[in-house]
């Protein structure tokens, strides 16, 4: 009895301070952000309650709409590119190749590098190297193409991560499955579609969630490549909240934007979890 008291007290003492810390730096600012979203706070000075004004304005604001469109477009393309390329890479790196571990190690390098510095390096590449190769202007200066540059840089780093996860997925597929498959005459694409892919679906969903969510929250790459330009064509939601909320005097308004963004992220994550678990049940 004495022991179980000590045990319970220790468990409580271990949990409560950490939960309080979590509350102070996660839940408390979340609540504050929610409250600010109903004010016309500029980030300094006094402010008034404006009710749902910010939310109504939000849905009529062309710049906010544009940033959602850009972020979504960018996240969708980057997720597709990343997953297709890394799946192909992983299949290659998992086959019977020479220098296997060296190649795997090299292909992971982009992931350990900081996104901001990588962005600055690619900025130079897009501004000076590519144009003089193809005799064109920089794609980062074009309102139609700048977003593709951001997709390329985001994918370049994310591919490294997703490939490693696909490789660990492929290594869980037992050799016997392939042997049985080859007796049935499965080769190439049909082997991949009917044998390999269904077995690595859990890893596919990890990668979709991981890359999708990261791309929706993109910030560093925007900062290094375009700063939202040209003509605000590459402002991601995070960038807009940072830029206008912190320095642009729109603290209250961008808080409303952040609340909506938070709901979008939650909806995205829940939808993806639902979708994934229903897929896995089918197997």
């Amino acid at each position, binding site marked *: 009895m004495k*022991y179980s008291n*000590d*045990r319970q007290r*220790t*468990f*409580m003492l*271990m*949990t409560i301070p*950490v*939960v309080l*810390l*979590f509350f102070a*730096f*996660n839940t408390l*600012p*979340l609540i504050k*952000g929610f409250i600010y979203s109903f004010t016309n706070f500029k980030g300094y000075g006094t402010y008034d309650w404006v009710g749902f004004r910010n939310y109504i304005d939000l849905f009529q604001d062309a710049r906010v709409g544009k940033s959602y469109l850009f972020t979504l477009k960018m996240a969708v393309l980057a997720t597709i590119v990343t997953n297709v390329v890394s799946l192909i890479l992983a299949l*290659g*790196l998992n*086959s*019977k*190749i*020479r*220098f296997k571990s060296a190649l*795997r190690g*090299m292909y992971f*390098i*982009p*992931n*350990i590098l*900081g*996104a*901001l*510095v*990588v962005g*600055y*390096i690619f900025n130079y*590449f897009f501004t000076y*190297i590519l144009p*003089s*190769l193809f005799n064109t202007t920089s794609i980062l200066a074009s309102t139609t193409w700048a977003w593709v540059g951001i997709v390329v840089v985001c994918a370049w780093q994310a591919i490294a*991560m997703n490939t*490693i996860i696909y490789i*660990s997925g492929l290594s869980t597929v037992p050799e016997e499955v392939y042997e049985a498959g080859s007796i049935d005459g499965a080769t190439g694409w049909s082997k991949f579609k009917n044998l390999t892919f269904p077995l690595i679906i859990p*890893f596919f969903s*990890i990668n979709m969630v991981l890359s999708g969510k990261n791309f929706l*929250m993109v*910030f*560093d790459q925007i900062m*290094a490549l375009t700063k939202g330009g040209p003509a605000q064509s590459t402002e991601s939601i995070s960038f807009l*909240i*940072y830029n206008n909320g*912190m320095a642009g005097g729109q603290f209250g308004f*961008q*808080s409303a934007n*952040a609340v909506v*963004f*938070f709901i979008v*992220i939650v909806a995205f*994550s829940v939808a993806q979890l639902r979708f994934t678990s229903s897929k896995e049940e089918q197997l």
Partner: protein
Amino acid sequence: MNVKVKERYNWPVTILLILGLITVIFPLYMTIVIAFKQPSEMTNSIAGILSLPKSWSLSNFSEAMRVTDFWRSLRNSLLITGVTVVLSILLHSMVGYAIGRNKAKKKWYNLAYLYIVSGMFVPFAILMMPLVKQTAQWGIANIIGVILCYLVFYMPMNLMLYSGYLVNIPVALEEAARVDGATTWTTYWKIIFPIMSPMHATVAVITALSVWNDVMTPLVIMSGSGLNTLPLAQMSFQTQFGTNYNLAFASYLLALLPLLIFYIICQKQILNGVVNGAVK
């Protein structure tokens, strides 16, 4: 036998993969050659930019170190990453243990688990502005505030990892220690904490990589203090670099170097850690 094994290598795929490496190596190659060159060597043609430098002089690097106050930024980065990693391992494993051992039976612990794990869905963008106000009010708009934020941001993930790992550690181990008269507190630190060391390695790797490369948190929280982390310094000094790309690239290379060295030394642990963190 040996010959047979050699014949089984898939050479076409190997060669394709080696060619594909250009996409990884080219940006790094570009960074290195530009970092070593003098501005006068950078003619407007591609050959001028991408050829090897005439001499491998380190002058760009010493200049970049001076301009960006490299050693101070490096010290800040090391301090923030080091303290965050150590405290994450201590605090997150402890709360992972307390919650993991109780969440199946006790409602409150299960609620605490779900409460913290749901923090994973909260994007930094919504916390950012209130956190800036809050850290300023509490007088921690500095390295301490940044570390506290990180401890909270990585808690959901690390809690999941630790309490998941705990399932494999039998409670019987703790009961054996109880017979010897040890309290739960000592049992945890003497027996359970050491057993969880594979998970400590995973947590250390993912936390260190994310913290080291993060820009947004120090950018908004420490911006008033004049302090830089190594990546943040690259942003702060953009205007000083101007069009001297050789200086800028020397600075970028210096910023990338610590993690590249770290990766070369513990590649295996990093790859394992990253995979464990994502898959578990």
